């Protein structure tokens, strides 16, 4: 048995580890909650789209043949999602530091501790992908273009009338702005271009600066058009149970009721700079009938009869969570004595009802995106 050094033994009497603070931050899910999640066993995913019209019947002369109608047009869209692969590595030298015993005779507790530590690293790696999905949703709502680093950006070709940059007296912090009219007019756009039936609730989310301009507006301050919903009234709205946004009030103007949310979440970009998912000064209106999907497509993988899962059960069980759409993997590099565990995923925030949302830059701050 190894001897414990005196310096280490003395610590037992002089100090204690009272608390731990491990700042494992959950990614926001507010924007992702606007989409359903679905997994596919294929590399790409397709969408068949037919844009509806609202044509009206015109009366005909009795005895005539009547008017002929047809539904013969459609568009087929196919997407190859971006691919994410995040992994952790445990090498022989790290393992060497953990056990007190020599050789390969680790105790069950030590193995569990190792598995839990590795699973934690893996879980944090998976959160990176979750954040990338939330960012895809933000890009979809902001510009309609999901940006891909290794590949071509995916452009949903949103109608140009549904993405606006306001100017002059239309800006929310200008003295001449009529925010009530703004909501009424943009509701008409959602009705005519987005084909969103009147009377629906529309989620309207904005960053903090846009919210500050909104609440400072005289018409809003009067509050005649505002009321606050209870949680029960949100029972069919998945965004209410998502994290990252704060519900403020409901604005009752025009042909819809607008649920106002403030969403000001951040992520660390590749340079480590804290960056907003949703750009400053922008708002987005998303009606109940908006449709999107997080399409989890197949990831590159060897068939099971070739694969080896040397440590998977222990580590993956320690994750303690379901990972639908994510593929866990691990392998041992015998030569370098490294154990790799990771998660891979090919998700795409797929915009299904392309024009059923409206985006505007309402403040003259920051940059114009798109």
């Amino acid at each position, binding site marked *: 048995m190894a001897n414990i050094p005196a310096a280490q033994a003395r610590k037992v009497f002089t100090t204690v580890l009272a608390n731990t603070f491990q700042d494992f931050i959950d990614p926001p899910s507010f924007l992702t909650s606007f989409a359903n999640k679905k997994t596919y066993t294929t590399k790409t995913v397709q969408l068949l789209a037919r844009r509806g019209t609202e044509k009206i019947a015109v009366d005909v002369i009795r005895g005539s043949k009547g008017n002929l*109608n*047809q539904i*013969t047009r459609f568009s087929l869209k*196919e997407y*190859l999602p971006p691919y994410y692969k995040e992994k952790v590595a445990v090498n022989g030298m790290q393992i060497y530091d953990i056990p007190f015993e020599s050789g390969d005779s680790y105790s069950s507790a030590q193995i569990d501790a190792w598995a839990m530590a590795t699973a934690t690293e893996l879980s944090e790696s998976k959160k990176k992908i979750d954040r990338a999905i939330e960012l895809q949703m933000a890009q979809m709502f902001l510009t309609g273009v999901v940006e891909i680093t290794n590949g*071509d950006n995916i452009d949903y070709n949103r109608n140009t009338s549904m993405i606006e940059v306001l100017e002059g007296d239309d800006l929310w912090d200008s003295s001449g702005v009529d925010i009530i009219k703004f909501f009424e007019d943009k509701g008409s756009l959602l009705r005519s271009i987005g084909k969103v039936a009147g009377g629906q609730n529309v989620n309207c989310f904005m960053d903090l600066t846009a919210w500050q301009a909104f609440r400072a507006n005289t018409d809003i301050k009067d509050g005649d058009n505002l009321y606050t919903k209870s949680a029960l009234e949100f029972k069919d709205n998945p965004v209410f149970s998502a994290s990252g946004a704060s519900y403020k009030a409901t604005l009752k103007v025009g042909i819809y009721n607008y649920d106002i949310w403030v969403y000001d979440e951040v992520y660390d970009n590749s340079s480590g700079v804290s960056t907003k998912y949703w750009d400053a000064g922008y708002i987005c209106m998303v009606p109940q009938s908006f449709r999107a999907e997080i399409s989890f497509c197949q990831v590159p993988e060897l068939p099971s009869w070739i694969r080896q899962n040397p440590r998977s059960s222990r580590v993956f069980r320690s994750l303690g969570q379901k990972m639908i759409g994510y593929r866990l993997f691990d392998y041992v590099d015998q030569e370098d004595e490294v154990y790799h565990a990771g998660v891979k995923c090919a998700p795409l925030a797929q915009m299904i009802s392309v024009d059923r949302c409206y985006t505007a830059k309402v403040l003259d701050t920051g940059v114009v995106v798109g």
Partner: protein
Amino acid sequence: MAQTSDQNQALTTYDYSQLFRGNYKVITGTYTNSSGDEVTLSEGMLFGRVHATGLLAILASGSSDGSQIPLGINLTSATVANGASATITLAVTGIVNQDKLVFDGTDDLETVVDSRQLRDRIPADTAGIELESFTELVNYENS
């Protein structure tokens, strides 16, 4: 069908509307390409007959050899080399989607030939082509 694509996405538009709704009779005839270039004869193209030779010709309102008068509508696509002849099949009766007719040059249904618009000439001059218009109830996705 129209298609655009890049590395991560593709968009294809389809139109399954029909030229003929049925009930058509056909005739065959010879078309000789003397245009100087290869010619593509599209489905839905209007044809007339040259009086002097009996050959079929693409309907052209400015002609005076007989090919300005509608005879029938081409049923199948074909490509004919310059100087070559081809046997083509025309529908001379039947219910036709007028939006899918293919005209030569700037001709259209309102083009006047001998004091009559083609929309009136086609039913009157053919053996029994009936023109119908369809209302399309859907549109393509943004592109």
